[in-house]
Structure formats: C-alpha cells, structure tokens
C-alpha cells in the first residue's frame, strides 16, 4: 500500500521510498525513515497536498510524491 491511500486519521509504517535522490534525502532528513510511524491528518481544500504527522511534526506532501512511498499498516 502507498502513503496516498492512507485514510485520514489512520497510521502506517514506512517501508520504502521510491523517489528521486533530492526528494529522498529531504524525506530522510525530516524523518521518513524505514519503520517510522506516519499518521495521515488531513487533506487540503483541493485534496492535494496531504498533511502527515511524522516524528512529532506535521509535514505536507503532494499526492504524486506520497504515491511513491510504500507503507505497511
């Protein structure tokens, strides 16, 4: 399952990142590391981007990027 499919209010754990290296590094920096718990908080008015809770901070990601982050419940 991918991160963008996560329902609001639900949590999952990061499995892998399949993104280009720039974004990969940034995601790693802010805590999207394998095994980290991610909670989907809410979507924006136009449904994209989506706000996630990661390691105590709220991070917004675009759907197209979230699509490439594999998670497990």
């Amino acid at each position, binding site marked *: 399952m991918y991160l963008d499919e996560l329902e*609001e209010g639900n949590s999952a754990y990061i499995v892998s990142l399949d*993104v*280009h290296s*720039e*974004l*990969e*590094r*940034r*995601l*790693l*920096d*802010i*805590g999207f*590391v*394998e095994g*980290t718990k991610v*909670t989907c*908080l*809410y*979507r*924006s*008015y*136009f*449904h*994209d*981007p989506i*706000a996630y*809770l990661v*390691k*105590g*901070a*709220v*991070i*917004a*990601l*675009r759907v197209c*990027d979230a699509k490439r982050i594999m998670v497990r419940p």
Partner: protein
Amino acid sequence: MKYCFKQGFQKKYPQERVIALAGNPNVGKSTIFNELTGLKQHTGNWTGKTVDNAYGYYGYCDKNYKVYDLPGTYSLISHSKEEEHARDFICLEHYDVMVVVCDALCLERNLNLVLQILEITNNVIVCVNLLDEAQKKGIQIDLKKLEKILGIPVIGTCARNKIGINELVQMIEQYQSQEAFHVSYDDFLEEKIKEVEAVLKKTLPENLNTRFFALRFIEQDQKMLQRLEETTNFELQKYPELIQLGKKVHTELKEHGYYLLKHQIVKTIYQKSEEICSQVVTNQKQRQISKFERLFQKKWFGIPMMLLLLFLIFWITMVGANIPSELLFQFFAWLGDWLRYLLEMFRVPTYFCNLLLDGAYQTVTWVIAVMLPPMAIFFPLFTILEDFGLLPRIAFQLDKQFAKCHACGKQALTMCMGFGCNAVGVTGTRIIDSKRERLLAMITNNFVPCNGRFPTMIAIITMFFIGFSSGIQNTFLSALILTGIILFGIAMTFLVSYILSKTVLKGVPSAFVLELPPFRKPQIGKVIVHSIFHRTLFVLGRAISVALPAGILIFLLANTNINGSDLLMICADFLDPFARMIGLDGVILLSFFLGFPANEIVMPIMLMIYLSKTTMVEMNDLLRVKEILLNNGWTLITAICTILFSLLHFPCSTTCLTIKKETKSWKWMFFTIVLTTSIAVIVCFLVSHIFTFFLSVS
C-alpha cells in the same frame, strides 16, 4: 550581567569568540539571537524566515561575542539555498561554540541534526527551546540525562519568555571543549571510514573534520565535495589517489550489500536519536492536534476561511486608517500654513519657501498621512497571523493550484512577504528548492502590492469608489474592492507562472515538502510594539528618505521653464498620447516612471505636476485631492486603470536590484521589468477600452 551592543559594534574587549546558532527550521533561533544581541531579526511561526546568515554582537565577562544566526536546516546534506548557507557555515567556517537549538516538541528529529553536527565538531551546546509548549502538551525532557548521554552541555529555554537566556550566556562563557558522543556505524563501514580518513588527514585543510568528509567521500556526495573545493583552497584534482579511494570504497560497500548507503547512514543516526529520546523524553505521547488544526480537517474550511481573513484584514485596515489619515492631513495642512507664515516672517525668498513647502514638505507629509495609518494597522494584524502559524497553511491550501501552474506552493509564502516589501519577497524565494520555480516566484512577486502601493490603492478606492461617508456598507464595499484587486493580482500570478512554465521556464513541478508548524498563541502586545516601532516606522523612514529628495527634485523640474513650458510637462505631453490609450494620462505615466526609486511617491509626484499647471490648492484632505484629480480629467476609468497599472507595472528599483542580486544576472531583471510592464499595459488597454465601450453603449 548581559550587555547588548548594536550591529556594527566591533570590539570592546580584546578577546572575541565566535558563536553560531544552528538548528531545524522554526525552533526559535532568531528569537534567541534577538535576545542575545538586542537586534531585531524577523521572527515568525514558519519555516524559512531567516534566509541569510545574520550576525550581531554582545559582551559578557570581559569577552566579546560575535553571534551568527544561521538559517534553519534539517540536516547537513541540504538542498535549498538558505539551507546551504547554514551547512557551509557549519562544515567549513571557524567558530568557537555552535549552539544547536532544538524543538522540545519533536526532539527526536532535532537530535538527528545534533548528532550530525557532532560528527563535525565537539564544540556544541544543545539548547532545548520551547520547553513551555512541550510541558503544556505533557512532554517532559530529562535535560541532565541528555547532557550525560551526549557529553556536551544541555540547557532548556523558553526564548519567547526570555527564560534561560542568561543561563545560556553563562554556559557559553564557561564553555570548554570536551569529548562528546559520536554515532558509530557498523564495523565494516567504520573500517572504511578509517581508511579514507587516514588519507584525508594528510590532504584536507587543518581546521576541517576528517571523519565528516570521509563519510561524504564514501557516499560520493558530489555536491558537498564541490562546495569543499569552492570554499577552501583544497583541490581534489591534485589528489587522484583520493578520488580513486573514494570510488573504490563506494563500490566495495555496494558489493557488501550497502546498496542504500545514504539510507543506512541516516537510519543509523535516527536510530541513535530514537534511542536517546526514549531515555530522556517521558510521556512521549503523540502530538495532540489542537482545535484549530481540527478545523482544517473540515473540507469546506480552508479556502473560504482564507478569503474571509483577507477581506477582514483589509476591512479593519481601511476602517481604522480612515479617520487617522484625515486627521493627519488636517494636521499637516495646519502645520504647513504655520511653517509658511514662519518662513515668510524670516523673509525667506518665496521661491525657496515654495520649494520647501510645496516640494519637500508636501511630498513627505503625503507619504506619512497616506502610509502611516494603514501600515500601523496592517503590519500588526499580519504579524499576528504569521505568529499564529497561518502562513504555511496558506501555502498548503494553495499548493495544488501552484502545482497546476508548474510552480511551488511555497511561492504563497513569498507572496505574503511581498505585502510588506517585494524586495523581501524576492529574497524570501530562497526557501524554494528548484531554481526554475524560484525564478517564477521572483518574477511574479511584484503582482502582490507592497506597502508602497497598497496605501495608494486604498486612497484611490476611498476617493473614487465609495465616497467619504464612512457608513458600514461603504467600508465593506471598499474592502471588497481591495480584496478583488488583490485576488486579481493573485490570478495574474497564476496565469503568468503558468505561461512562463510552458514557454521560457519550461519544466515540471519539483517535489514539495512543507512543514506545518503548531499553532502558537501570538504575543499580541509584543507583536504590536514590534511591528509598529520596528517595521512600520522603519518602512516609513525609508519612504521619507526617498520622498524628501524626490519632492525637491520634482518641484525643481516642475518649475523650471523651457520655452514657456516646464520640463515635466514636456515629458508628460510626450507620453500623453500613449498613456491615453491605456486609460491613463501623460502625468500619471510619468509619475510611475519617476516613482521607480520607491512606489510611495507616485501619488505625490502626480499631484505636484498637476498643481504646477493650475493655481495652488491646499491639500488638506482626500476630498480636495479628488477635486484636483477631477479637474485634471480623471474619471472612474482613470482610477481603475491607475490601480491596475500600479498593481502590475515594473517593480521598484530596490526590488529590481534584488532580483539581479538573487539571480546573478541582469537578464532576468530586465525580463521582469519588460514582462510586468507589458502585462500592465495590455491589461489597462483592455480594461479602459472595454469600459469605454460599455459606457458608450449604455
């Protein structure tokens, strides 16, 4: 005791120590910096306010301290421009103590940076800020234990309430370098690090940390190695064996199953952070979502709420500014009469008297009367929303639209800064990672009216659209019109971004990662004092310093006769046929050109030129100003076109130079000028012709 010195103060004591404040974005580095140095760095509740290394000084116990406020960074392997500044400083510059400021609310992620910095230097003090907020959310942090684990001094602060600052100053004073905690990787990787380090020890400049760069060599982090060569006299080409070794080790590690070396390094550091956190943070329950945050979960809330807020801010600004503005006009008119009387009493020549009063005085007082009241209301309101944490939410809500235009949602943040000053907005685009998207944000920043144009628009709206009775309907209507104009500017931003990204600046949108900070209760008292005394008066002072010489110069030009006509009228007459085509007149267009140094002076210049050809009229309120304008052939269409031209035309000189500085090219500066002006001309042409057509039909 603590002593504060102003910036520019160099040496009071012979000894100087350099300290730097580093940390994740939005943890309060600038707040601590301001407390330490007594300076007024811009602070606010969002990521990326500080885009440049600022520095200041303070003195304590016979020593001089130079403090650097670095832009926030998540890690040392950074992408965006402002983070690079911080990274270069941390990795390559000399400093005595690095104070790493951490957010108590998400200590784990912050420790990640601490551990990375500890790979470079032992001279670190950890400052856990926002302890009060954490306590409110039930998070307890055992600072003593953290100190023990890390082997470096740790201090807790609540910088916004000035708690812990004196202790921090003492701690920096007493600081002595000691052996600190280091992350160790698995045996195989450690072995390889040692191997590269051994070579680096012989080749790398002395002050640089070999272990950190050994890791970068192993990672084959080309960007960092390139920066190393750029900033130091180290030349990699001279050491082919080093390049070879780096590549060799990199492939060796791959063969041993280290496919995702980056991940493994980051993961190791995170695991350590997690481990440390689990020992020092108690009651580590999840961040509770505040009631405001919950509001955002409702679908209908986002965009309508923003529009309503925008409208409300304008409404409050206009209602509040109306009467003080009138009073200021009256006061300055009275003072002007009095001054004239005084000058005449001292038998000052009439020409000189007119130069001072009709030239300099008139321009300066206009700028004050029109600008001061709206700014004194708008800035505090805006800063309160900024402190509250709303700005990144605006970017969050609008990102989808920006993405459609192949731009970045963070552009919304730079647009918000543009309300204050477009030059600041242009510098602020450094928070955008992609160069292409940065350019888009820079070129279109001008479509947000800055404080120089914004009060002029309010004045014109007041004069031409709603009359002067300040009934509730009228004020609502004027705020609606202003909101409409701003929305039009935003629509133009989208349109131009879209067209540019399909033509000149082709490309796909890059990734967008934005941190939404927790909502914080704004410190209303402090915000009002700060934004009035430091922001409003500063901006006003800058406007006056341009208005004064401009007023004198324009007066001289307007009253210098060549063949019976003054120089300005000749220029205005020359521009007139073209200006008429776009719904303006020669004088208005000329004023916009002359207002290039600062947009604030466009209106007073215009009035001065108008007045130079008619008999003198006292400008004691806006009603009189309207009279002057009407006498010179202004209509509703002229008013609309002037507002639109003001919104869309070329940026002021400061903004232009900032664009040149940020892009390092004259090309983009001229491109921006030509593009924005063409758009202004086209829009004004269309609007004036469509309106004239409808008026002639009806």
